């Protein structure tokens, strides 16, 4: 799992395979959807295009989490909050685009504000009619929250489980806040009824394919960026932090700044994922802030394999496809399966599906965190 001891060739092959597969999807899916006639057996419906686009966004989210969890050892149980904030920023842009086509036909105010008898737009909604501003907010808002949170948390050395629990409390608090009507984000119902993005109708097949391609491009870009980070010197320091935080600090590294950097970067990636997710599913509501939603992200990464980056992507795609299939076919056993997945992946698949595939290679050392940190724990007891 540690980068330094991992054969470069293997991981590069894996990267190449993964990027190749996604790039292939980016070409094949729109072609099957747009060019192949609808009555052909090979035709892919728009439903599937949006669904696959959704998976890619979630994969980007899982990637963002793997960056902090897999490399810096920060188990964030609140990454859904950054995802949802990015989604809300996009949702606000899309709401402003509706204009007079809303149910109440108000030129400026979104429907829910008219319904709540608001007279004017709250100040924090200003600027969201511009896509550029919204795009900026999609990375800045989650980034700023992650910065503020990380600044306090990492400097006061809140680590491990404590950090996990307060990230969970953070997303829980945000969920309660966004459920309130007077927050100005649509309360319980969230933001929905979007019409178009950048002038293109969201209902059009072309737009759906374009969003799908955008998600894929974002995923590839995010992957390359994360890869760049973890193979750099900074990435090695992060692994050192994960394995022995105090020791790294004693060596003279300002651990909190490394963690802060990677946490903010990860939050921004999660925000982008959320922003691409919202136009494809057509709604954003406070449910995205639910602690369960955040913890599900962790299970994608755990199933795929933590600390490989591509493992997170594989895990997200696998689990989400499974979720779609099971909630359709056997809705009542999905939670049994998800719960079982948590237990099985932690007990029997400490390195995830990706680790399973690599098992036959003798040179691959077992994940160091398991033994080292276990011994460290035992020693401390």
């Amino acid at each position: 799992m540690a980068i330094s001891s991992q054969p470069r060739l293997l991981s590069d092959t894996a990267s190449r395979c993964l990027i190749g597969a996604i790039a292939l999807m980016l070409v094949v899916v729109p072609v099957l959807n747009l060019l192949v006639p609808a009555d052909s057996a090979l035709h892919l419906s728009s439903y599937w295009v949006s669904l696959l686009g959704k998976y890619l966004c979630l994969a980007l989210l899982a990637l963002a989490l793997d960056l902090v969890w897999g490399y810096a050892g920060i188990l964030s149980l609140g990454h859904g909050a950054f995802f949802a904030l990015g989604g809300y920023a996009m949702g606000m842009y899309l709401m402003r685009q509706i204009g007079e086509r809303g149910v109440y036909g108000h030129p400026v105010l979104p429907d829910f504000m008219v319904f709540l008898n608001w007279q004017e737009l709250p100040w924090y909604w200003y600027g969201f009619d511009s896509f550029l501003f919204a795009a900026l907010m999609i990375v800045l808002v989650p980034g700023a929250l992650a910065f503020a949170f990380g600044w306090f948390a990492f400097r006061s050395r809140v680590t491990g489980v404590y950090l996990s629990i307060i990230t969970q409390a953070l997303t829980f608090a945000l969920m309660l806040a966004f459920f309130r009507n007077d927050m100005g984000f649509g309360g319980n119902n969230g933001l929905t009824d979007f019409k178009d993005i950048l002038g293109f109708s969201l209902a059009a097949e072309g737009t759906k394919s374009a969003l799908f391609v955008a998600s894929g491009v974002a995923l590839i870009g995010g992957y390359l960026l994360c890869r760049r980070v973890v193979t750099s010197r900074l990435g090695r320091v992060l692994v050192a932090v994960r394995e022995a935080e105090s020791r790294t600090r004693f060596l003279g590294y300002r651990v909190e700044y490394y963690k802060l950097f990677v946490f903010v970067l990860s939050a921004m990636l999660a925000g982008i994922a959320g922003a691409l997710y919202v136009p494809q599913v057509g709604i954003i509501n406070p449910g995205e802030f639910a602690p369960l939603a955040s913890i599900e992200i962790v299970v994608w990464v755990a199933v795929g394999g933590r600390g490989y980056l591509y493992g997170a992507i594989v895990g997200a795609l696998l689990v989400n496809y499974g979720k779609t299939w099971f909630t359709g076919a056997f809705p009542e056993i999905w939670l049994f399966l998800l719960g079982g997945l948590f237990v099985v992946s932690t007990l029997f698949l400490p390195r995830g599906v990706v680790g399973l595939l690599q098992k036959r290679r003798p040179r691959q050392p077992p994940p160091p965190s398991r033994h080292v940190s276990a011994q460290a724990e035992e020693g401390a007891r």
Partner: protein
Amino acid sequence: MIYTPVFGAFMKLLFALFLAIAAVGSSAVVSAAAADSSFESTAVALGTASFREKQALVERLAAFEDPRVPQLLAALLAGDLYRDTASGALFVGKEAPALLVASGAATAPSGKLRKVITNNSLRSALRPLLAATRLRDADAHVRLQAARTLIGEVPQALAPTLVAVIAEEQRPEVRRALRTALATLQLADADAAVRSDAVRVLADNNDKQILTLLEQRARQEQDPEVMAALTEAIASLQAREKWFAFLGDLFFGLSLGSVLLLAAVGLAITFGVMGVINMAHGEMIMLGAYTTYVVQLMMPDHIALSLVVAVPAAFVVSGLVGIAIERGVIRFLYGRPLETLLATFGISLVLQQLVRTIFSPLNKSVITPDWLSGSWQINGMLSLTYNRLYIILFALAVLVTLVGLLRKTPIGLQMRAVTQNRAMASSMGIRTGRVDALTFGLGSGIAGIAGVALSQLTNVGPNLGQSYIIDSFLVVVFGGVGNLFGTFVAAMSLGVVTKFAEPLVGAVLAKILILVFVILFIQRRPRGLFALKGRFVED
């Protein structure tokens, strides 16, 4: 239909005739009763009178010295008085009618039983009348209740009776209540001196109702001296009302804190003492609540006892599930807290879904026994509900038992030994695996007990545990991990702060603010309120 003036006039005439007949008929009843003014005839007249006539009749009835008067008025007030349509005799109760006032020779109902109906204004007239009949009751408690009922509702006619009763009354608290009742009447007296006295008597009472009466009087008072007394009395009553409202809020806050304490104290064992992050802790609480539900299903005739049975049952159920989880999963994950967190979270999902499958996703209603409902009226300004009072006591009892178990028993000693130094404990011959399982079972079992208590306060549904898990963790972390006293202080202070913040900013915002506060607090003091010191602090 063709409406002609002639036809209209005809209808009016008919209507007037009808009214006249009705009036003659009813006045005949009253006058017949007046002529023969014995208790029996007045009471029997009640059976057929109109609402307005009943009002006059009950006032006359109250004046009789007959021992049946209180019974009659009480039955009428409770809607339990029935008239035999054949004989006109009055009975109490419908299922097993007991003869109250006979009419003629009949002692058993010969015709149909018809309820003697009342309306709101009649009932509010009945209450003081009934109370007045009980002012000379042999039981001091009944007299006190009667006097309290009269406060603010004394009919003018009763004033001389009250003065006489006050002179006879021996018990000081009853006399006080009587004087207060009389004073509420004297507040409107023509004599200014009497009014001033009344105000002074009333100022001594802690009662919201009296505050309202005084405020009403202040609005129409002319005399400056009485007005001064009124202003002073109102100010002092308002100050006391504030104080009691504060006490009430404090009590409510403590009860909220006790709920938190109950939810968190099991976690303080599993997380605080063992260091296991048990995300399925909330589901242990839920299992306890469902155990209560099942126990009540099994003993529907003994609801009052059901909670007493449910407490050990829930402890056993949740404890066994906890032991199974520890032996099945957690044991393999010691030293890997993040993995433990994920695995137990998975277990919590499975348990929730299991309950949904077995019991349906809908909330179940758990019955509250009688001894838990109602409230303890301390005075007119402060009342404590029994369920909240009991939950405070229960939480304290659980905490004390737990501390005793850990400090004073051999198994508690072993538990502490294993958590402090596993290797050393093991070499001293302690079976650490067994102790781990038992400790985890203990923490889970206590969560189950918390579930019994929570089933009385909130809805019992599959999501019951989820809503407490974050709060519980925050309480444990806030109080300082591994410190039961810290957990206690943290739970109580969070409960009280929540209660006092709620009216200021609203319930949801208060919750958010508390979360933010605890998050910030943990940043400042990562080891909680009462941090452990020593070498096992660093992990």
